[in-house]
C-alpha cells in the first residue's frame, strides 16, 4: 500500500515537474530579452558618447544586462580580449553558442542578435548606433511577444503538468 502511494506520488510529480520546467522557460524568456535590451542600451551609450573600445564597452554592457545576458556579453568581451584574430561579432556569436543551453531564447530572438554580428564594431559611430537601436527595437517587440506568451502559457503548462500527472495515476490505478 505504501509502495503504491509512493509510486502514485512520483507519477504525479514527474509530469508536474516537466510542466513547471516548460512554464519557467516561458517566464525566463522576457527577462532575458530585457537583459539584452539593457545591455545593448548601455552599449549604445558607450559607443555614442564614450567611444569606448569594444571589450570595455561589452564589459560595462554586461554589468547592466542581468545574469544571463550579462554572462554572454562578459564572455564575448573575454573572447575578444583573448585575441586570436576574431572580430567582436564573432566573439559574441561564439559566446552565444557556448551559452545556448542555458538561455531560453527562440531562434527568432537569436536572429535579432545575429543581425548585429557582422556590423558590431565595424563601422563609424553613427552607423553603429543605428544598428544597435534597430536591434533594441526588435528586442522590445520580441519582449512584448514573449510577455504575452508568458501570460498565456506559463500557468497553462503548470496546470497541464499537474493534471496530466493526476490523470495518469487515475488511469493506471
Amino acid at each position, binding site marked *: 500500500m505504501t509502495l503504491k502511494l509512493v509510486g502514485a506520488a512520483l507519477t504525479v510529480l514527474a509530469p508536474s515537474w516537466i510542466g513547471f520546467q516548460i512554464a519557467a522557460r516561458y517566464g525566463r524568456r522576457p527577462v532575458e530579452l530585457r537583459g539584452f535590451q539593457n545591455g545593448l542600451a548601455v552599449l549604445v551609450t558607450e559607443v555614442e558618447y564614450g567611444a*569606448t*573600445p*569594444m571589450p570595455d564597452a561589452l564589459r560595462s554592457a554586461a554589468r547592466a544586462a542581468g545574469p544571463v545576458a550579462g554572462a554572454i556579453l562578459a564572455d564575448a568581451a573575454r573572447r575578444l580580449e583573448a585575441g586570436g*584574430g576574431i572580430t*567582436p561579432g564573432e566573439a559574441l556569436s561564439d559566446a552565444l553558442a557556448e551559452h545556448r543551453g542555458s538561455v531560453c531564447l527562440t531562434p527568432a530572438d537569436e536572429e535579432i542578435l545575429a543581425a548585429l554580428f557582422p556590423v558590431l*564594431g*565595424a*563601422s*563609424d559611430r553613427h*552607423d553603429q548606433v543605428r544598428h544597435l537601436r534597430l536591434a533594441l527595437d526588435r528586442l522590445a517587440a520580441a519582449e512584448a511577444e514573449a510577455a504575452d506568451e508568458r501570460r498565456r502559457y506559463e500557468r497553462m503548462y503548470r496546470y497541464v503538468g499537474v493534471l496530466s500527472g493526476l490523470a495518469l495515476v487515475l488511469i493506471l490505478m
Partner: protein
Amino acid sequence: MLPEGFEREILTYVSPRLTGLLRRAAEALPAPLEEIRIRQDRPLQLVYPGGDAFVAPDGRLTADPGRAVRPDHDDLQRTFQLMARGSVYAWEEEVRGGFLTLEGGHRVGLCGRAVTEAGRIRTLTQVASLNIRIAREVPGAADGLLPHLVRGGRFLSTLLISPPQAGKTTLLRDLVRQLSAGVPRLGLRGLKVGLVDERSEVAGCLRGVPQRDVGPRTDVLDGCPKAEGLMLLIRALSPEVVAADEIGRPEDATAVMEALHAGVAVLATAHGSGLADVRRRPALAELLRVGAFERAVLLSRRRGPGTVEAVLDLAREVVA
C-alpha cells in the same frame, strides 16, 4: 629581415590567414620591411628600401604579381577591424583622416569608399586597401645637425626645408628627442618641448600616449591643428621649445610669431626644395623676413633620406 616587435605589434592585427605568409615573406626580404600593402583581390605586396616584392601563396617572395596571393574581402575587413581593436567607431577621427595608429607607432593608411557629407569626408567604408607602414626610429639622425643649431647652450629657432620623403619627419622627431633629453656634449640641458602633432606622424600617439621616443621632457598635443595647438602649448604648458610639422598657412605664421614673442624657440618643417621655394609662400616669406628663424636646414634625398644639403644662418650666411 623582421623588424623589431613585428610579431606583437603588426602580425597580431593582421587576418590570421595572412600572418603565416607575411612572417615567412618578411623573413626572406633582403632588407628590413618598410610597408605591407594589402589590397582586396590584388596581389599582396611588401616594400623595403630599394624595392618591392609580392608574396606567393606559399609565403615565398615573387616578382610576378600574377603568381602572388590575393587577399579577399574577409581578409581586408578582418584586418581593418583587428587594427581598430574591434572598435572602428572609437577611431572615427583617424579613419576620416585615412589612417590608424598601431601600438609602436606604426601607421596604417586606409583607402576605400569615402562617404561624404556636405563636401567633407564623413567616414570610409568598404576599406579595400591597407598600407601598413612600419615605424622605424633612427635615433641619432640629428647627431650631425644639432651642433649647428645650438649656440651658447641655447637652441636656435630652426626651419627644416625638404621635399617629400626626404626624412623631414624622422629628423624632426630625433631633434625633439635630443632637445628633450639634453645633449651634454654640446652643453645643452634638457629642454621642455611642446610638440603639435597634427597628423600623428611625429610621435605616433595611441590614445594620447606617444608610441615613439620623443624624449622625457616632451608634451605631445595629438591631432590638433597647428596654429591653435601652438598657442595652447605656449599658454598652458610653458615649453622652452615648440615643434610642429609642415607649417605654411597664415595662421601658422601668426602662432610662430606669438611663440617667438613669448621667448619660446620654434622648430618647424616646411615643404620645398630650397629657400627660394619657401620664400614664394606668403606666410613663410613673412616669417623669414622678420627673422623668425635663425637657422634653416635644407634636406634632400641625394644620399638617401635625411641628407643634409646645407645649414643656413638666416641672420648671416651659410654655416655648413
